[in-house]
C-alpha cells in the first residue's frame, strides 16, 4: 500500500488473456439466460392470456348445448311413442365470412324461396359471428344448400319434437317451443321436474334420456277422440270433452278435449276455445252432483237407502220454488229419487243430513282446492265457503258451484272403488303405490250402494240410452244437464252443458269416465236434448269400443245386476 502515488485514482488492472475470455463467456451466458427467461416469460404470459380468453360458445344468447339438447321420448302405457325427438339440420350463417352477400342471398333463395330478400340481406350483412337463417329444415334441403357452395353457411343439428299422433293427445302432451322447452302439458311439467336441469348442464344430449311412460293408453285415447269428434258433429255441439281414469290407481287412461290443437304447430293452441276443459275448465256439472249428495247423505247415516221422501210439491225458498225436471210428484224412495233425478228428493235428503255436513263432505272430496295433477293447466274451483239454506239446496243438485270435470271424475272414482280417494295422475302408478295414497271418504257400504244406484239409473233411469249402446259391459252412471251461466245468470235458451259421469264394469269396477257435450242440439226431430241423448249415448259408444281393449268381456247375465243390489236395498 505504500507505493500508492498521488495520482493513484486510476486503478491499473492487468487482465490476462485467459481471464478476459472467461469474463466474456460469463457475459454471454448471462445474456443467453436473460433471453431465455424473457422468452419463457412471454410464453407464460401468453398462456395466462389464453386462459382468460372467453370463447363465445353461445348462439344468439343461448348455449349450443341447449339447442342440441334432447327431450326424453314420451310413451304411452303400452310403449307406443306419443312424442319423439327427430334430429333436423338448421341453417346458420357467419356473416363475417361471407364474401359476396348479394350472390349468397340469390343462391339461398333458389333453395328457400319463401325467405324475404331484404330480410335475408340484412341478416347476412355486417360482421356478426353467427346468425340463424332458417331452423328445422329437412336433410334434402341441407344437401341442396351444401351443393351451392357458399362460404360462411353451415348447418347445426338440432333436436325437434315430433308428435306422431298429431292432435289426438294434444291436451295431455302439451307442446314445446322452437328451443325445445316445454310450454304446456306434460312437456312443461317434465321441464319443471328435471329435464330443464339436465339440459342446462349439458347432459341431455344424444339419445341418453330414458323414455317417460304415461298412464295413457293410446288406443283408448284414439277411440275416445274419435267418438267425441263424432259427437261434436252428430249433436252440432260447440265442444266435447271426456276422460277415463283407473279407479284403483288413479291413472288417467285417456283424456280428450275438443276442439284441440296440433302440438306439432304449437301456435294453434292459442286459438280461443281450445283450452283443456277437463282440467282447466270449471263448470256447473248439474245432476251428476246428485251422486255426491247421495253418497254424503248415505254415508252420514242419517239417510238410509230404504227411506222415502215426499216429492209431491216443490221446495220453496222465499219467492223461489225448486221443482223437478222429470216431475213425478209423489212420494219417492231413495233409489227412485236417483233414477228420476228428483231435485226435490235430493234437497230433502241433503236437509236430513244437514247442510254443514254436506259442505264438509265436498271439502273431503277435494272440491275446495285446485286438483293438482302433473298437468300445469289447472284452475281453482268455485264452491261457496259456507252454504245458506238455498245455496245448499241448489248445490245438492249441482247448481251454484263449479268444479272441473277432473274433480268430478276423481270423486266418482272414489265413490265407486270402495270409498278411497286417489288423486289422478298421468304417470304410471302401481296399485301398491296407490294404496299408500288412499284417503277414505266414504264407507265400503256406501260405495256399494252408490254403485247399485248408478247401475239402476242405467237400467231404468236417464242412462238407458247409454246402456243400450254398451250392453253387456255393466256400465252405470248419472246424467247432468246444466243450464249455462253467462254473465252470472242462467240462460234458458235450450243450450246446456250436458254431462255423463259413469263407472264400469260395475260388478268389479275398474274405470270411471266423464263425458261433456257443450251446447248439443237434437240429433233429429225424434230425439231429445237432455244429457242422456248426447253425453249418455257418446259414453255408451265409447265404452262399447274401449271395453274390449281394456280386457273387459261383455256379460249378458242378468243376475249380475241383481247381485249388485246390496242387502240394505232389498
Amino acid at each position: 500500500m505504500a507505493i500508492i502515488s498521488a495520482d493513484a485514482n486510476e486503478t491499473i488492472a492487468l487482465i490476462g488473456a485467459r481471464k478476459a475470455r472467461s469474463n466474456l463467456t460469463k457475459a454471454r451466458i448471462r445474456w443467453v439466460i436473460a433471453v431465455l427467461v424473457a422468452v419463457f416469460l412471454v410464453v407464460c404470459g401468453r398462456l395466462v392470456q389464453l386462459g382468460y380468453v372467453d370463447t363465445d360458445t353461445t348462439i344468439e344468447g343461448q348455449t349450443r348445448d341447449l339447442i342440441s339438447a334432447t327431450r326424453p321420448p314420451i310413451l304411452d302405457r303400452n310403449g307406443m311413442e306419443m312424442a319423439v325427438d327427430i334430429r333436423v339440420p338448421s341453417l346458420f350463417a357467419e356473416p363475417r365470412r361471407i364474401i359476396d352477400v348479394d350472390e349468397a342471398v340469390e343462391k339461398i333463395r333458389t333453395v328457400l324461396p319463401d325467405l324475404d330478400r331484404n330480410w335475408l340481406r340484412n341478416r347476412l350483412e355486417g360482421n356478426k359471428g353467427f346468425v340463424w337463417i332458417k331452423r328445422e329444415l329437412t336433410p334434402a334441403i341441407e344437401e341442396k344448400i351444401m351443393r351451392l357452395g357458399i362460404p360462411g353457411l353451415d348447418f347445426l343439428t338440432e333436436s325437434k319434437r315430433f308428435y306422431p299422433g298429431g292432435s289426438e293427445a294434444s291436451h295431455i302432451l302439451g307442446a314445446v317451443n322452437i328451443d325445445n322447452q316445454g310450454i304446456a302439458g306434460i312437456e312443461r311439467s317434465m321441464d319443471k321436474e328435471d329435464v330443464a336441469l339436465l339440459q342446462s348442464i349439458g347432459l341431455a344430449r344424444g339419445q341418453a334420456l330414458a323414455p317417460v311412460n304415461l298412464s295413457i293408453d293410446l288406443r283408448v285415447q284414439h277411440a275416445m277422440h274419435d267418438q267425441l269428434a263424432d259427437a261434436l258433429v252428430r249433436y252440432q255441439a260447440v265442444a266435447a270433452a271426456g276422460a277415463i281414469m283407473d279407479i284403483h290407481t288413479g291413472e288417467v287412461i285417456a283424456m280428450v278435449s275438443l276442439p284441440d290443437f296440433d302440438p306439432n304447430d304449437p301456435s294453434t293452441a292459442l286459438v280461443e276455445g281450445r283450452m283443456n276443459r277437463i282440467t282447466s275448465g270449471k263448470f256447473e256439472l248439474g245432476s251428476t252432483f246428485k251422486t255426491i249428495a247421495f253418497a254424503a247423505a248415505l254415508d252420514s247415516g242419517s239417510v238410509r237407502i230404504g227411506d222415502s221422501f215426499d216429492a209431491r210439491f216443490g221446495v220453496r225458498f222465499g219467492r223461489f220454488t225448486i221443482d223437478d225436471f222429470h216431475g213425478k210428484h209423489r212420494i219417492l224412495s231413495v233409489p227412485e229419487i236417483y233414477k228420476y233425478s228428483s231435485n226435490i228428493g235430493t234437497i230433502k235428503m241433503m236437509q236430513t243430513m244437514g247442510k254443514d255436513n254436506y259442505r264438509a263432505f265436498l271439502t273431503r272430496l277435494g272440491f275446495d282446492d285446485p286438483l293438482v295433477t302433473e298437468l300445469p293447466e289447472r284452475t281453482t274451483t268455485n264452491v261457496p265457503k259456507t252454504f245458506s239454506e238455498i245455496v245448499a239446496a241448489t248445490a245438492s243438485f249441482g247448481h251454484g258451484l263449479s268444479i272441473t270435470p277432473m274433480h268430478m271424475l276423481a270423486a266418482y272414482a272414489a265413490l265407486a272403488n270402495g270409498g278411497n280417494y286417489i288423486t289422478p295422475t298421468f304417470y304410471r302408478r302401481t296399485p301398491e303405490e296407490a294404496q299408500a295414497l288412499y284417503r277414505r271418504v266414504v264407507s265400503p257400504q256406501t260405495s256399494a250402494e252408490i254403485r247399485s244406484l248408478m247401475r239402476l239409473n242405467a237400467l231404468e233411469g236417464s242412462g238407458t240410452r247409454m246402456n243400450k249402446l254398451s250392453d253387456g259391459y255393466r256400465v252405470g252412471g248419472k246424467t247432468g244437464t246444466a243450464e249455462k251461466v253467462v254473465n252470472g245468470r242462467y240462460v234458458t235458451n235450450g243450450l246446456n252443458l250436458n254431462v255423463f259421469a259413469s263407472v264400469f264394469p260395475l260388478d268389479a269396477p275398474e274405470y270411471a269416465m266423464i263425458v261433456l257435450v257443450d251446447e248439443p242440439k237434437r240429433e233429429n226431430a225424434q230425439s231429445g236434448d237432455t244429457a242422456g241423448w248426447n253425453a249418455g249415448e257418446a259414453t255408451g259408444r265409447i265404452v262399447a269400443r274401449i271395453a274390449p281393449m281394456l280386457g273387459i268381456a261383455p256379460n249378458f247375465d242378468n243376475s249380475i245386476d241383481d247381485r249388485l243390489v246390496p242387502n240394505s236395498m232389498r
Partner: protein
Amino acid sequence: MIRTLNIVFTLTSIAALVGVYALKYSVEETASAKAAIEHTISRQEADLSLLKADWAYLNQPAHVGPIVTRHVDQLGLQPLKQAQISSFDIIPMRPEAPDNDAMTALFESLESGNDPADAPLQGLQ
C-alpha cells in the same frame, strides 16, 4: 469410447425422431378416422331418429284409423259387437273318454261306403 457413445446417441435420437413422427401421423390418421366415424354415427342417428318417428307415425291409431275407415266397404268391415266376444269357458270341454259306441257306428258306416262327412257337402252341390 465417447465417440462410440456419441454415435449410439445420434442413432437413438434419429430412431426416436422417426418413431415420434410416425406415431404423430398415425395418431392424426386415427383422429381423422374417428371424426369421420363420429360424423357417420351422428348422421345415422339423425336418420334413425327420422325412421323411428316414421315408424311411430305409421303405427299410430290416428294414422291407421282413417285407413281402416277408407276401406270399410271393400273389406266389408264392421265394428265389433258385444255378442261376438266370448270366452273359452263357455266352449264345452272334450269328453273324458272317447265315445266307443259312436266310433264303432262311424267306422261301420264308413265300411259300408257311406261317409257322413260327405252328406253336408252333397247338400251344397
